[in-house]
């Protein structure tokens, strides 16, 4: 089934007097190719980001309500459905991060960063992996009760 494409798709560079039909695209354009499927999955990772953020906001709200509400929030997180959702959410967001840092980040760097020339592109993946490990370790230590 054909669906309306973005109206700016196939738009001529200069305004013309010729009227053209609205661009259409196949409704399942993204299903045949693994690259397109990954692209769409990347966009819809937003669902997990949203739901996960709502869980965090609920936790903050409970913390502001008091000790009983906070403990009830922690108790709710023990429900098996919550645990399954969070394992899935963790997998999706790690995949989302790997795609952001190791596939897209390097491709979107400008030739200059401010007045400075951009570092060589091979620097970015290990630097991003190092930053991710550092932040992960810091959060694990803090929420694990080890530090401070």
């Amino acid at each position, binding site marked *: 089934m054909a*669906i*309306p*494409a*973005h*109206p700016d798709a196939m738009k001529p560079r200069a305004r013309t007097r010729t009227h053209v039909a609205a661009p259409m695209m196949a409704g399942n354009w*993204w299903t045949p190719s693994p690259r397109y499927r990954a*692209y*769409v999955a*990347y*966009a*819809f*990772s*937003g*669902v997990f*980001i*949203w739901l*996960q*953020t*709502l*869980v*965090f*906001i609920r*936790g*903050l*709200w409970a*913390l*502001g*309500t*008091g*000790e009983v509400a*906070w*403990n009830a929030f*922690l108790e709710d*997180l*023990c429900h098996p459905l*919550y*645990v399954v959702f*969070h*394992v899935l*959410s*963790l997998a999706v*967001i*790690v995949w*989302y*991060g*790997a795609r*952001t*840092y190791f596939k897209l*980040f390097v491709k979107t760097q400008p030739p200059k960063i401010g007045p400075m020339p951009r570092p060589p592109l091979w620097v970015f993946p290990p630097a991003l992996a190092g*930053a*991710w490990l550092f*932040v*992960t370790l*810091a*959060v*694990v230590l*803090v*929420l*694990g*009760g080890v530090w401070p």
Partner: protein
Amino acid sequence: MSHGPVKKFLNAIEPLIWGPFVTGNFLTPLFFPAIILMLCIAAPLGWLPEGALSYERAHALATNPIVVVGILALIPLALLAGSHHLRFGIIDVASAEHDGPVALTLYGLWQLGAVVTAIAILRIFFD
């Protein structure tokens, strides 16, 4: 999709949204996995030491100025990253025909989430 005032408004705010979106796109996968792992998986499964997420400790952490700034930045930016991704996912998979109401709803929810987060932080300070 109409080219009416909603579309003009969305086009006008696009450059303003792009910077925070990219920042959220970068910060969300940097911080979220460890927080999910510890708060939402390790704690419920009893992998954390006693008292690691007790009310007193969680309250002290959430009122630390660095943590407050981090939460006030991270949560709204994550919501924006999610909203922006979803908006363009819907355009790509469904249609751009209803982009106006979809975008206004998603960005509106992002703004609402940011306000609720700020109120939640204030409640922690004044409980």
